[in-house]
């Protein structure tokens, strides 16, 4: 969005218009390039929603910086491979405690300085958690601060979690209210909101109507009472309270009757493996150690028996809730098909009572018991009726499933959060006018088109850097003009000659310098050079001779002659080329 805006403003020929646009962009709330995340409190301060409106305009100048930074970064990052050096923290593999620390290096350096480093594929490993995600890894105490408060204090983790959840609830309520206010205020501001094509978010917010009706606290309380534990069904995931016949065919009762009449019922053979739960009516499961008396033979044959089980057997007929035993018994297919023990109706009744409870435990146990129990999947299988119209009563019954659209409808108010984030901001003419009319109290920046910079007309920032000297940058090496070809006395070459780079001058430059000193009227410079390089008179003489030779040689190379030429440095290349070719 940003880059688009920048381009747009630059491409407009009318500078006034561009200026206006830029000025408007300065005040744009959600339009920041860098650092927009800084200062944002990720804590649960609900008042932030409102604050956003107030806080952001103060960051007005950031916009300009942002544009500049963007450009620079693009240049640096994309053009220069040199800058693609490793950004990253050093990493100590193997030590879990240390593995957390490199991040500090990375971000302390990063938060303060420029952000333009590019992470390359080769450096990825430096961010890697490596052993950290090992299955066996556990969180260490050192990861967290405040653990002592929990473990020494009276509140347990669970209590703390519950406290957090109720806190979240409150926060959510407050946020909801704020979003609603935000929406309604926006709605009020815009004339003919309902028909405004720019307003993509239109909420069916009944609370607004309620507000119109001036709902009193009393009425709200009444509403709360209506929507209570009793009226709302939270238990949609459990089927404890569901009627048994739910989900069966309409005539399932008749079918059952018919099946009962058919004799004999299908029974699994002793040798067959039992498919758990497939044929509940035929297969008997014994969940209790009550039966151990009759099954002692089987149990004693079991090699894997543990002492624990022996004790269990000895303690008959007490109930034991030991999962190990049940698991073991489950492995014996024939065990379930022994009907002989089920003669006593009182006992059976007891067992059934027990079985129901155990059925639960058993189910949950299967999950853990599986050698690869990790991944479980919940699917809707062969039950299209559920897919097309699932009825999930939710705590507040706010969400409704739209089968045609394949989505849940409701809670549109939460979209208000994203309104400012994702919608391109339209600049209406009215807003533009408002901008224009606003008194220029705060920033008074004027763009200096000649020097391509912004000037603060308030002059309140000029002394900020006055006592900080500029850094001296080493100047790059530049060729001087060749001897005899420097007829311009005013040519300001002096500072360059002082530059340290020239100290290690080649023979050519030395020659140039000496010839210059002999010719030019810049005596001071000549003095300097003499001080720095103690040239013998003989050497200078030699240079002069060489110079004469060279002048003699090249004076006819240039059409205009040497005296009144406009020297073009390209000649150097021409000469070089010529020399190379001749060789």
């Amino acid at each position, binding site marked *: 969005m940003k880059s688009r805006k920048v381009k747009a403003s630059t491409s407009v020929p009318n500078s006034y218009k561009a200026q206006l646009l830029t000025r408007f962009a300065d005040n744009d709330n959600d339009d920041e390039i860098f650092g927009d995340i800084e200062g944002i409190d990720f804590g649960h301060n609900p008042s932030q929603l409102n604050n956003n409106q107030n806080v952001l305009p103060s960051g007005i100048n950031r916009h300009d910086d942002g544009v500049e930074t963007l450009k620079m970064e693009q240049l640096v990052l994309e053009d220069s491979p040199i800058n693609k050096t490793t950004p990253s923290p050093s990493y100590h593999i193997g030590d879990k405690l240390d593995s957390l620390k490199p991040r500090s290096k990375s971000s302390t350096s990063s938060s303060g300085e420029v952000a333009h480093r*590019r992470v390359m594929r080769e450096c990825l490993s430096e961010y890697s958690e490596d052993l950290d995600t090992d299955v066996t890894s556990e969180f260490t105490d050192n990861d967290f601060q405040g653990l002592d408060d929990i473990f020494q204090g009276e509140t347990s983790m669970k209590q703390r979690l519950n406290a957090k959840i109720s806190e979240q609830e409150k926060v959510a309520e407050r946020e909801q209210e704020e979003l609603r206010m935000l929406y309604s205020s926006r709605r009020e501001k815009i004339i003919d909101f309902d028909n405004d094509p720019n307003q993509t978010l239109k909420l069916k917010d009944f609370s607004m109507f309620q507000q119109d009706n001036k709902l009193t606290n009393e009425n709200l309380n009444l509403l709360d009472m209506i929507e209570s534990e009793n009226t709302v069904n939270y238990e949609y995931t459990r089927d404890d309270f569901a009627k048994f016949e739910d989900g069966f065919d309409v005539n399932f009762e008749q079918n059952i009757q018919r099946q009962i009449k058919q004799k004999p019922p299908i029974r699994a053979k002793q040798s067959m493996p039992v498919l758990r739960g497939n044929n509940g009516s035929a297969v008997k499961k014994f969940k209790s150690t009550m039966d151990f008396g009759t099954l002692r033979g089987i149990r004693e044959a079991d090699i894997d028996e543990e002492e624990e089980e022996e004790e269990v057997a000895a303690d008959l007929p007490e109930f034991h809730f030991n999962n190990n035993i049940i698991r073991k018994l489950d492995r014996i297919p024939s065990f379930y098909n022994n009907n002989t023990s089920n003669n006593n109706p009182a006992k059976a009744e007891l067992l059934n009572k027990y079985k129901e409870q155990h059925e639960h435990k058993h189910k949950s146990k299967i999950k853990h018991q599986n050698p690869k129990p990790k991944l479980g999947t919940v699917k809707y299988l062969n039950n299209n009726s559920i897919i097309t119209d699932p009825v999930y009563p939710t705590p507040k019954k706010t969400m409704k499933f739209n089968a045609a659209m394949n989505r849940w409808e409701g809670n549109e108010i939460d979209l208000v959060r994203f309104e400012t984030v994702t919608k391109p901001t339209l600049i209406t003419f009215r807003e533009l006018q408002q901008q224009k009319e606003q008194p220029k109290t705060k920033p008074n920046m004027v763009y200096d088109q000649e020097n391509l910079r912004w000037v603060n007309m308030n002059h309140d920032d000029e002394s900020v850097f006055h006592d900080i000297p500029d850094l001296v940058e080493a100047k790059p090496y530049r060729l001087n003009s060749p001897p005899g070809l420097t007829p311009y006395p005013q040519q300001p070459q002096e500072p360059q000659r002082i530059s340290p780079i020239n100290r290690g001058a080649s023979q050519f430059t030395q020659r140039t310098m000496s010839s210059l000193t002999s010719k030019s009227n810049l005596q001071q410079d000549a003095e300097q050079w003499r001080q720095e390089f103690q040239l013998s008179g003989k050497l200078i003489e030699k240079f002069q001779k060489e110079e004469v030779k060279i002048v003699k040689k090249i004076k006819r190379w240039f059409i205009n002659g040497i005296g009144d030429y406009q020297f073009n440095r390209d000649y150097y290349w021409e000469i070089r080329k010529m020399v190379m070719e001749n060789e």
Partner: protein
Amino acid sequence: MPDIEDDNQDQNNQVALKIGLIGDSQIGKTSLMVKYVEGSFDEDYIQTLGVNFMDKKIQIRNTTITFSIWDLGGQKEFINMLPLVSNDAVAILFMFDLTRKSTLNSIKEWYRQARGFNKTAIPFLVGTKYDQFIDLSFQDQLEITQQAKKFGSAMKAPVVFCSTSHSINVQKIFKIILSKAFDLKLNLDEITNVGEPILIFK
């Protein structure tokens, strides 16, 4: 409310945290879950037909914390199972593929729907496939990062860029969850620079 294991062990030392993973298809929800729980990563894509769930137990001092991770198939047809994943979750990870901007755009809708069911869950914005993200042009990286940060602040959610295949910021997501759920201070520094694996949670 977190469902608490009804084992006959000391109940006070057992806490279960349900965590929902939500987002468009093929962004790496299941991969992240499997990586965190089993420590393994498989390049192959296996579509989630419904809802996957896995448990991971961790031990802090004398308390066992069970992360019960629920991962919803990203295809539209499974969105009817959204309440299964989001209800009772302590944290919901809203996930997107860092290399596909459209998946970030979808976050809005995912957020609206999931939050419709559960307003107490701590939201997270998690960008996946960071290892591929770094191959994008800087301009793209910048745009995506900025947008993610904006989304994060709109949702009041921590923002994490992670790479399951390279084990970047995977474990940290769950550490942050823990720190948020129990209001603990986490000894971890943020990473906020464009191009780096973002870690914003404070």
